[in-house]
């Protein structure tokens, strides 16, 4: 009986952590690939629209970035079936730290000290929210009892 209760409590936490990582990394890497793709696009104003569209849909960075963002969307929507919106969004904001690291080391962007400080503050805020219960609606409280 104790083993069953423990398993019932452990599995949702494991599932939650797996999906949090999936949401964070698919969003971060998806955005990074999109940024790389956009940097390889021709000038929007100087290119015929049909040609620009063709470049867009055949750009491998854009395609892979979009696929990862589709995975991000699906993962996030799945999380909303067991966790609060006000929990999922701030907790997954810790991905900004990953985005900053990718921006610096992959895209070779300069990040000022103030911007780094802002990213650290965002991460602390995300960690604070992660300490709160992941679901608070009355219907879930009843089910969790």
């Amino acid at each position, binding site marked *: 009986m104790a083993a069953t209760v423990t398993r019932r409590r452990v599995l949702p936490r494991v599932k939650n952590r797996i999906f949090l990582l999936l949401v964070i990394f698919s969003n971060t890497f998806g*955005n*990074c690939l*999109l*940024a790389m793709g*956009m*940097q390889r*696009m021709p000038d*929007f104003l100087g290119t015929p629209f049909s040609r620009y569209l063709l470049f867009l849909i055949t750009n491998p960075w854009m395609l892979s970035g979009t696929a990862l*963002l589709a995975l991000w*969307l*699906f993962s996030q*929507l*799945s999380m909303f*079936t*067991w966790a*609060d*919106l*006000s*929990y999922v*969004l*701030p907790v997954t*904001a810790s991905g*900004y730290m990953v*985005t*900053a690291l*990718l*921006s*610096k080391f992959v*895209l070779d*962007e*300069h*990040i000022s000290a*103030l*911007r780094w*400080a*802002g*990213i*650290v*503050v*965002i*991460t*602390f*805020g*995300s*960690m*604070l*929210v992660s*300490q*709160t219960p992941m679901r*608070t*609606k*009355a219907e879930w409280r009843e089910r969790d009892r």
Partner: protein
Amino acid sequence: MRGEIVDFRLGGLARVLHYIVTHRLVMLGIGCNALSFGSFLAVLSLAPLSFAVPATALNFILKTLLAKWYLREDVSWHRWAGVALVAAGILMISF
């Protein structure tokens, strides 16, 4: 289909996908996300990623407010403090 997703086999995922594409509110939400995505792509072509991504994250505050008022989530002061820190971090990044 209601409630928490527990079946992650192919059939289960297919049912979730079917629910997503046939539920009007979810599709409307995805439509709004698509609009946001299009604007975000435009921003990406003008600004570095490390600015573009956090700068568009001010919708956190709006979403938390909507979660409290519309979704009736219990947003404790801990959670508000976390959201406030996220918002403060966003402001720092904007400068």
